Every structure is written in structure tokens, then in C-alpha cells.
């Protein structure tokens, strides 16, 4: 048996809408099988993984806290991947943004005005963008593969943060624990509804960013450039669009948004600079971008979906006693199915049995 593909004359609109949902369905089926293999009732397990976290107000706040960085990063990555630039180092740009923004409250603890927070957010964006500019520069100047360089910079950023949080930026009164001083109130991203839960304004930033990026892609010349250069670089060159400029634009935008997510996480959710500030948001956001079909608005829904896998993992550990790594497995499976289902958009997919192939001329 094998699979035969036949190119559709035009991409299927139906499957363009349906494919993420088919992928979600397949992930649930695979998840049910996984839970059965672990000796759990699959329905109870899926309920506590995907539904239970949505039934309480505080966990909805948790969901929002986790969705904010995922959406912010994924919006940038969507634009970046559309332009055919492969930034997979968002995790590093997130960390560098967190560091750069944190410098304000750590180095200038006395500076506490209404300007503190905007300055931090700006610095965070700048830090992430600067870190993203490195692979862009190396790609445009030296023709170096951006996938590998941006990824290597993740490890570098993680080690740099570790050094800062244990060394120069450590709280001198912190009993030798790693981590900076706790930020003053003026340096904290405020909570939306402090009485109900901890969700901070990061999610608002994320949704605004998603709408701006969507508008840019759809209605501006710059967005047109992204789409043309991504879909057909040759056509883009004939139109006089600069591929090098686009690479810089894509990396500065995705790096800047990842950096903004980083400082929003540090100042909104954590409240100090620690030796680790991300449970892999930069990598999970890649899944978010693809699940949202590289559409910034799609990233909003996809971001909440993936945030749920973080919470579901924790919930499954507490109520079912299965490993919280299940969440990571779900994330990986989801991306797999999303990519597989995208084939339905561009091709007719047929299962062909051996015998039928032999009759058709022994074609593979």
C-alpha cells in the first residue's frame, strides 16, 4: 500500500479551513490511544487534560498567562515563515528580550515613573530584535544557514542568562539564591483583573500585535512583499523586491516580538529575572504558528490551544498521575498532524494498493 498525491489545480478552500481541525481531531485520537497504553480511561484522561483546565476562573487566567507569550512569538514567526525565512531561535530572542528589559528595574531601582514600563518593553523588543539580527546578518552577508545559527544562539542565550542570574545581576540580599531583585510595582506589567486571577496585560499586547501583523500582511505593500518573496522568490526579484531586506525585516520583526514576549513574561508573570524564564515558549510557538496556518489571527486561537497543552499536562499529572511530559508529546503530535493535513489543501490524496499500481505501470 502506498499514498499517491495528485496536485490540485487550485488549493482547496475547504481544506484550508478544515485541516487544523482534522489535525486536532487526529491528535485527540492519538492521545486517547496514548492514555489507553498508559492504562488510563481515555475519556476521563482527555477530559481532565483538555476540559478541566477550562472550568475554573483561576485556571482560565493561567491559560491566558501562557497564551500571551505563545501568541506574541507566533505572530512574528508567522510573518517570518511566510517570507521563507526560518527563524527557529525565538527561544533565544525571548530570553534576550527578557534580559534587556530587566536591566531597567535592576540597574536603576530608583527610576519608578509611568515611563518605567514602556521603556522596559521597548528595551525588551530591542534586545530580541538585536539577537534576531545576528542570523539575519550572517545569512545576508555570508550566506550562512539561518536555521542552524538561530538555534545555536538559543543555547548561547540560555547560558548567558544563567550567568547573569547567578552572577552580576544576582540579588545581593538573596541568600545566594540565583535570581535578581524583585521588580518594584512600577516595573511590573499590571494584572487585568487582580481580584480574579493573575492574567496580565501581555495578552492584550499579543492580540494587538496579531491584528497589526494581519493588517500589514493583507493590506500593505510590505505585506505583499512578504507573501510574494515567500511564495515565489524569483517573481519577487523581478518585481524589484530585495530578498536581503526581507530577511532583515522578518528576523527583526519576529525577534522583536519574541523579545517583547520575554520582557512581558518576566515583568508580568515572574516579577524578577531568573536563571530560566521560559518553559520552551519559543519552540512551542513554532507549533502555534503552523497550527494557525501562518496567519497572525489564526495564531491567537492556536496560542490558546497550545497553552491548554501546558495546563493539561499539569492537570493530567495531578489527577491521573501520568507524567506532565504528556503535554510535550501532545504538542509534537499536533504539529505532525497539522503538517500532514496541510497536504490535503494542495493535493488529492489517494491510498493505492500494490496491485492497482502494477496495473498502472509499476509507478511508485
Amino acid at each position, binding site marked *: 500500500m502506498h499514498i499517491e498525491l495528485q496536485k490540485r489545480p487550485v488549493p482547496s478552500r475547504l481544506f484550508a479551513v478544515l485541516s487544523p481541525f482534522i489535525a486536532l481531531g487526529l491528535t485527540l485520537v492519538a492521545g486517547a490511544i496514548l492514555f489507553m497504553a498508559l492504562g488510563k480511561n481515555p475519556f476521563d484522561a482527555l477530559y481532565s487534560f483538555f476540559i478541566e483546565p477550562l472550568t475554573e476562573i483561576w485556571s482560565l487566567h493561567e491559560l491566558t498567562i501562557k497564551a500571551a507569550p505563545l501568541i506574541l512569538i507566533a505572530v512574528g514567526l508567522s510573518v517570518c515563515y511566510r517570507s521563507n525565512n526560518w527563524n527557529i531561535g525565538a527561544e533565544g530572542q525571548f530570553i534576550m528580550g527578557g534580559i534587556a528589559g530587566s536591566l531597567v528595574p535592576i540597574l536603576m531601582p530608583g527610576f519608578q515613573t509611568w515611563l518605567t514600563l514602556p521603556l522596559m518593553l521597548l528595551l525588551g523588543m530591542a534586545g530580541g530584535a538585536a539577537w534576531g539580527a545576528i542570523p539575519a546578518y550572517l545569512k545576508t552577508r555570508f550566506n550562512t544557514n539561518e*536555521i542552524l545559527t538561530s538555534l545555536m544562539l538559543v543555547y548561547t542565550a540560555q547560558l548567558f542568562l544563567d550567568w547573569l542570574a547567578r552572577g552580576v545581576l544576582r540579588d545581593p540580599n538573596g541568600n545566594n539564591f540565583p535570581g535578581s531583585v524583585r521588580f518594584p510595582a512600577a516595573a511590573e506589567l499590571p494584572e487585568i483583573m487582580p481580584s480574579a486571577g493573575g492574567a496580565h496585560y501581555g495578552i492584550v499586547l499579543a492580540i494587538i500585535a496579531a491584528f497589526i501583523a494581519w493588517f500589514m500582511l493583507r493590506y500593505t505593500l510590505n505585506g505583499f512583499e512578504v507573501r510574494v518573496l515567500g511564495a515565489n522568490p524569483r517573481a519577487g526579484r523581478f518585481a524589484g523586491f530585495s530578498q536581503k531586506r526581507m530577511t532583515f525585516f522578518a528576523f527583526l520583526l519576529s525577534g522583536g516580538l519574541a523579545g517583547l514576549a520575554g520582557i512581558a513574561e518576566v515583568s508580568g508573570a515572574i516579577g524578577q529575572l531568573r536563571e530560566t524564564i521560559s518553559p520552551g515558549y519559543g519552540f512551542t510557538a*513554532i507549533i502555534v504558528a503552523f497550527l494557525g496556518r501562518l496567519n497572525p489571527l489564526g495564531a491567537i486561537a492556536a496560542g490558546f490551544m497550545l497553552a491548554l497543552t501546558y495546563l493539561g499536562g499539569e492537570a493530567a499529572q495531578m489527577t491521573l498521575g501520568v507524567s506532565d511530559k504528556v503535554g510535550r508529546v501532545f504538542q509534537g503530535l499536533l*504539529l505532525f498532524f497539522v503538517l500532514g493535513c496541510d497536504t490535503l489543501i*494542495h*493535493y488529492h490524496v489517494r491510498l493505492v494498493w500494490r496491485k492497482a499500481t502494477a496495473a498502472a505501470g509499476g509507478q*511508485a
Partner: protein
Amino acid sequence: MDITQNILLTIMTAATPLLIAAIGELVVERSGVLNLGVEGMMVIGAVCGFAATALSGSPWIGMLAAVAAGAVFSLAFGVLTLSLAANQVATGLSLTLLGLGLSGMIGESFVGSAGVKLGSLHIPVLTDIPLIGRLVFGQDPIFYISLILTGGVAWFLFRTRAGLTLRAVGDNHASAHALGINVLKIRYLAVMFGGACAGLAGAHLSLVYTPQWVENMTAGRGWIALALVVFASWRPWRVLGGAYLFGAVSIGQLHAQALGFGIPSQFLSALPYVATIVVLVIISRDRRLTLMNTPASLGRPFVPDR
């Protein structure tokens, strides 16, 4: 004098997983497929090798399990990118993410348990020769396999008809298809070979290098292996040189950490990653040379017409 031998031994041990994973990926890329999932397949190999060893008591069975696990896991990538023509970059990434998640789950009950080390070769008299005895006759079995693999792949790719076919598929899949070559079948085989190699490389980590299971124990080695393939311009013997160079860098930084020098340990730990970037920049600077060496169909999906 024995110190020199010891240092060389540790360098070779550190280089072996990089070498094996990179040789596997080299064959995959020569067939025109870019599999960025090396890190994921490697970590799956590491955990399956460790688990099978713990369950069976034999590290040899562990090693075979790792090879099989890597090959089976790579099939998931094969089905998506070859049969379903999915984006290779994204699928490779998802293989890595899935591998890291799955390995964490499989390995959770093995964290902290003592491993069994795959024993080193010991031939009386020969292994005891001063200076070179242990380098030549006293290493772990996977080290010898890595050398055989390198030589074997070099011979296969450039001295056999099947190797020529594989390179033809990687350089121009449409022409190869027109000549009646089954492009997808060759690519499937290449992808599985790459998976098996990555699995073996993972087994080296959890059965030889540090015989235990630690989550994410590959620590980016799969990605460095990918960089090595580019660095070596897709030539097997250059991969060997590159792997030993990286082994030397990572062992060198460990020694530097032990000696102190007043440099923060994190900066030294970052050295292999920074070195990777520097080396990639140097090697890819000449655009013409890169174009000449890169398999021309690398990363481009192929859908056979009828």
C-alpha cells in the same frame, strides 16, 4: 605521556556521537532530503538504548534497540515529507519536538537509576602498548562502528552504483525519476539509515559517554551534527575531521572549566555553540562553492507524476 592518550581518548569519545549522527544525516541529505529531526531521533535512541539495557541487562541489546528506535522514529518523518510531500524544515522540527517530549515520558522512571556501560575493547598486550595502545585497541565498540560507518559510507557513495543512484536522486530528482529510478523508495531508505545512525549516536551517549539517562541529554548535539554536514561539504571523511575538531573544542572547554582561568563556566559551555556558528560562517562564505557542493534537490519535495 599517558595524559596525552587520555585527552585524545576523551576527545574521540566526545566526537563519536557527532560523527555517527552526521554520517547518517549526510546520506539523507545526499539523497535530497533535509531532516532537521536529528536531535529528536538521537534523544529517542538514547532513551530507548538506556531503557532496553535496563530491562534486558545487556547493553548490546540496548544498542540494537536504539538503532531500531531511531529508524522507526525516522519513518514518521518519511511518511510526512515523502509520501505526503510536507514541508521538510517544519516536519524535521516537529520530529525534534516530539522526540524530546516522548523521550522525557519514556525515560521518566529511569531518571537517576544507574546505567550499564558498554565495555571497551581489551586485547591483552596490544591494548597495553604505551602511547597508542588504548587509542587503537582499547575503545568502546561504537567508536569502531563509527569508523567503519564513515569508510563504508564514503565507499558506498562514491564507489558503488547504488551510491551513484542515491546522489543522482539528491541532485536532480526529476531526471532520476525519468530514468526509472524509484526516487521515493531510495529516499525512504536513506531517511531510515539516517534515523538508525542517529539512534546509535544516542545510544553512545546513554551507554558509553555518560551511562545514565538525563532528560534532554543530547544537549544540541543533533544540531551540531547537522552543522557538521554543511561544514564537511557533504563529504564523509571531512565529517570525521569536523567531528574530532568539535570533540576537541568541547573537551577543551571542560578542561578550561576545571582549571578556572577566571572565565565563567557558562561562557566556556557556550563555546561549542559559538564555534559552530563561526565555522558555518567561514564555510558558507563562498557562495559559489556552497552551491557546487550542496545536493541540488536538497529540501525540495518530490511528487512523482503519472
